């Protein structure tokens, strides 16, 4: 019980991921599949963002960074910026995947006049 409360961010990511996975593989409607894909990718972004976060951590900008009096920096006081920066790239990737998927869906709709997978399969 304690781990569920203190590490709730990880449970949220797992829940989101399962919702996304179900929608991607279990749904017949193509738009729902894409929404599932988007949720799945967002879940991973949540995961990465929460591994960088720290309790009572502040933004990772070091004061007196270039000053003559260089101080020791305690990493515990700062949020880890690297996973957050990685996620900027992952967001770009997921947006472009979404774009490609939507473009393909547009083509499918133009040709088959439906977005239900089984109806398209019938026409093929």
């Amino acid at each position: 019980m304690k781990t569920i409360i203190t590490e709730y961010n990880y449970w949220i990511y797992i829940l989101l991921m399962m919702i996304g996975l179900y929608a991607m593989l279990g749904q017949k409607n193509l738009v729902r599949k894409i929404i599932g894909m988007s949720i799945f990718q967002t879940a991973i972004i949540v995961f990465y963002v929460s591994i960088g976060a720290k309790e009572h951590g502040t933004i990772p900008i070091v004061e007196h960074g270039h000053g003559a009096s260089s101080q020791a920096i305690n990493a515990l006081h700062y949020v880890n910026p690297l996973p957050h920066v990685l996620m900027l790239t992952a967001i770009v990737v997921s947006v472009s995947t979404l774009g490609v998927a939507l473009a393909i869906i547009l083509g499918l709709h133009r040709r088959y006049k439906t977005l239900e997978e089984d109806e398209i399969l019938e026409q093929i």
Partner: protein
Amino acid sequence: MMIYSEQLPILLVILPLFAAILISVIGVFQTRYCYPVAVCALIGSLYAAAGVLMQVLENGVIHYQLGGWPPPFGIEYVIDHLNAMVLLIIASVGLIAVIFSKESVKQEMEDKIPQFYTLYVLLVTGLLGMTITGDAFNLYVLLEISALTTYALIALGEDRALLSSFVYVIMGTLGACFYLLGVGHLYIMTGSLNMSDLLTILPNLYTSDAVLVAFILIMIGIWIKMAFFPLHGWLPNAYTYAPSATSCLIAPLMTKVSVYIMIRIMFSTFSTDFVFKAYTAQNLIVWMAVAAIVGGSILALAQKDFKKMLTYLIVAEVGYMVGGIWLANRHGITGAILHIANDAMMTLCLFLVAGIIVYKTKGHHLDDMKGLYKKMPITMAAFTVGALSMIGVPPTAGFFSKWYLILGAIDAGQWGFMAALLFSSLVNAILFFRVIEIAYFEPMSDHHADGHHGVPAMAIDEAPFSMLAPLVIVSLSLIVLGIYAGDIVTNIIQFAVPIGI
């Protein structure tokens, strides 16, 4: 001159990237310049890849720091014997397939020439970048670049291509996300994304469950990407209905580069101590490879469509390579790495033939091949070489990698894997002799003349030079690769097999 040769690793990747931008700009004004620009960029890449391979052979491993940032912080390119070889394969297949694509693209998608070539060189960029990088997250980004371009390239194809491409989007994204999640777990445990850095930090953590989960997630992600049976569902339709020029590029390369990534993760990020000794999935995975080989071969036997038959053979070939690596001995891994090179060329050869058949007969059904030996002898001679290599008849290349794989299976005592290899050779023999029988003995039917495809039988003759030349080069290279297989193993591959195996 000195500085220039030091910069070859980055030139290799940057040239096609800039060419992609250039082509998309030029394409707005003049579509006829797209093809030459793409060819020039890929010639440049091939030159750089050959240069890099020479440097590696002379001086050993190259470390190239992007922007001069030292490794754990910046992104590093690492080129050793293994990826120097894979880079050369990618660059040469990319160049050969682009030369081939000229007429076929004109016929199949006249209004989309700039888009096609932009995506094409971008895909080559992605594949080269994935192979050359020494950074786990950089690999993910380039994996997605190559995946996104592949989705679009497949969607340019025939009627059913759109739905196949959509299925591939869903599965490909799933695979890439699993990989990313695994890398996230590694980052939590180690705080690093650089592969050689991970290699030194991880040994203390090999007992950790999180590292095991990371390894499993990464493996599943890569297996989805390489269509390892039973995760192969997306591949056959996507590769069958893609435009011919597209399938000539992706069918030889995508699965092979994924196999390369698997090797890189297994031996350069984790180590043989972890992969083969810390826990014992080795037997299970070899048996999965057996299932892939047998399943792929049987499904190929059931096909009536030439291109689809070839795609199921790719599924079987993936089983060869994964199984060979997980045999965990020197012969097995040597065979698997040699097979990356050989299979890329064999698959390219057969898909070039399929491309020519589609170009001439407008179909890729086995029935479309009736009587083709008389109509296009050179094409079909090249096809015969490719088929013999696929079956594994010496002196073609396919024989030697299969030989090493069988030696490895005997060393490891994996009789199931050996039986699967022999079974697959037998099935390949049946398959290709059936095709040869149809194309050689059966007379040209009325099938072509009835206007079903709109190509009368009389109009079918030998393909244009720009299609034949690449095909002849590839089929000769199959024999050359076979003759020099021993030299490739002693000069390149034996350095690529991890130490201690």
